[in-house]
C-alpha cells in the first residue's frame, strides 16, 4: 500500500513537472513577444524623436520681420 502511494506520488510529481514546464514554455514565448513589442516601440520612439527634431527645426525659422533685433 505504501509502495502504491509512493508510485502515485512519483507519477503525480512527474505530471506536475510536465505541466509546469509547458506553462514555463508558454510564459517564455509571451516574454519573447513582449520583447518584440518593446523593440517595435523603441523604433516607434526613434521615429517620433526624428519627427520632433524635424518639426522643431522647421517651426523655429521665423520670418525676418519677426526675428528679434540684436
Amino acid at each position, binding site marked *: 500500500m505504501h509502495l502504491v502511494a509512493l508510485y502515485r506520488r*512519483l507519477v503525480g510529481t512527474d505530471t506536475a513537472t510536465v505541466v509546469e514546464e509547458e*506553462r514555463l514554455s508558454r510564459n517564455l514565448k509571451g516574454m519573447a513577444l513582449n520583447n518584440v513589442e518593446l523593440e517595435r*516601440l523603441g523604433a516607434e520612439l526613434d521615429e517620433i524623436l526624428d519627427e520632433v527634431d524635424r*518639426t522643431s527645426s522647421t517651426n523655429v525659422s521665423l520670418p525676418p520681420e*519677426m526675428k528679434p533685433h540684436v
Partner: protein
Amino acid sequence: MTLAAVTEAKSVTETVAYIVVRDSVFGALLVLALTALYLLTVQLLRIQEKRVTDLQKLNERVEAREDSTRRLVDKMTEAFQQVKSSLDTLSRVGERQAEATDGNTEVLRKVEGTLDSVIREHARTAAHVAGYRRPTLAVESLPPKRGG
C-alpha cells in the same frame, strides 16, 4: 558403512550450510538493494516535488513580469499615439501660425505704407502752412507804427 554415511552426511551438511549462507548473503544484499532503492525513490520524489515548487515560483514570477511588461507596452503604445496626435496638431498649428504671420506681415507693411504717406502728407501740409503764414507772422511781429 558408518564411515561412508558419516562422510556423506558431512558432505550434505556442508552443502546445505553453503546454500544457507549463500542465500542468506544474497537475501541480505537484496534487502540492502531494496532499502537503497526505496531511499533513492524517496529522495527522487523530494527532488521532483522541489523542482515542481521551483517551477511554480518561477512561472508566477515570469507571469507577473509578463503582465507588468504588457501593461507597460499598452501604456507606451497609448502614450505614443497621443504624442503622434499632438505632433500632428502642433504641425497644423505651426502651419496656421506661419500663414497668420505672413498675413500679419502683409498688414504691417500696408500700415507702414499708409503711415508713411500720412506722415508725408502731414509734413507737406505743415510746410505749406508754415510757408503761407510766415510773412503774416513777420508782419504781425513788427511793432506798430506811431502817427501813421
